[in-house]
């Protein structure tokens, strides 16, 4: 299962939200695989259209997040709900987490669509295969 299929492009609650309360109009990549994910982060922003990867306008922050699994597949990029959780870096420089025998990469970042790609050590994003 891929993309935003099954999600409305605009969640129902958005009708009562004026543009002024958007957190500086940060745009992030949004994507949620339906398998092995419990819960959702889609209510942290306004989901705009898109098939494979959606765009989400953050409601509560100017902060995107990204999570990648061992094979560098994005798991659930989206809007984070706070600017206070170490979201200073404009680029997504992921820190690895070892959990249950797997390596997970994750980042918080503060520029538009910064969670689209992993930014290795601040250099432009490198194709994943080259590093190994």
């Amino acid at each position, binding site marked *: 299962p891929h993309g935003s299929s099954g999600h409305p492009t605009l969640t129902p609650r958005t009708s009562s939200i004026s543009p002024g309360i958007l957190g500086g109009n940060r745009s992030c990549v949004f994507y949620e695989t339906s398998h092995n994910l419990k819960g959702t*982060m889609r209510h942290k922003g306004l989901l705009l259209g898109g098939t494979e990867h959606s765009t989400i306008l953050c409601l509560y922050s100017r902060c995107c997040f990204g999570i990648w699994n061992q094979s560098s597949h994005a798991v*659930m990029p989206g809007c984070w709900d706070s600017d206070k959780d170490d979201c200073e870096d404009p680029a997504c420089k992921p820190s690895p987490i070892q959990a249950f025998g797997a390596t997970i990469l994750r980042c918080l970042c503060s520029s538009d669509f910064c969670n689209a790609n992993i930014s290795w050590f601040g250099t432009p994003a490198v194709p994943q295969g080259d590093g190994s």
Partner: protein
Amino acid sequence: QNRSARPQAYCRLQELMVDLYYENFLIIPKRYAANNCEGPCKLPLSTRISNHSTHTVLLLGMQERGAPLQRSPCCVPVKYSSKDFILVTTEGFKVASFPDLVAEECGCR
């Protein structure tokens, strides 16, 4: 980062970042503003802190009259809020909200 070494005049909410790097199951965030309540509790409380209890006023009165207390009134959180986290479990990823993770209001107790 917003914290300074200057002593607080009265009990109030201060920013405090808590590291969660040692908790491997927590994916995002690894660090969050939990905040803390800091500063002395002194009479008169009512003009300084909205959230006070009569019990605390009596304890502070005892101290002012020289009676020793085993435990002096203390500046503590009296209201918390919850915080969302993204976790990894054996079954995959999970978005979960945990209660009482962020100090929101302080009082002398």
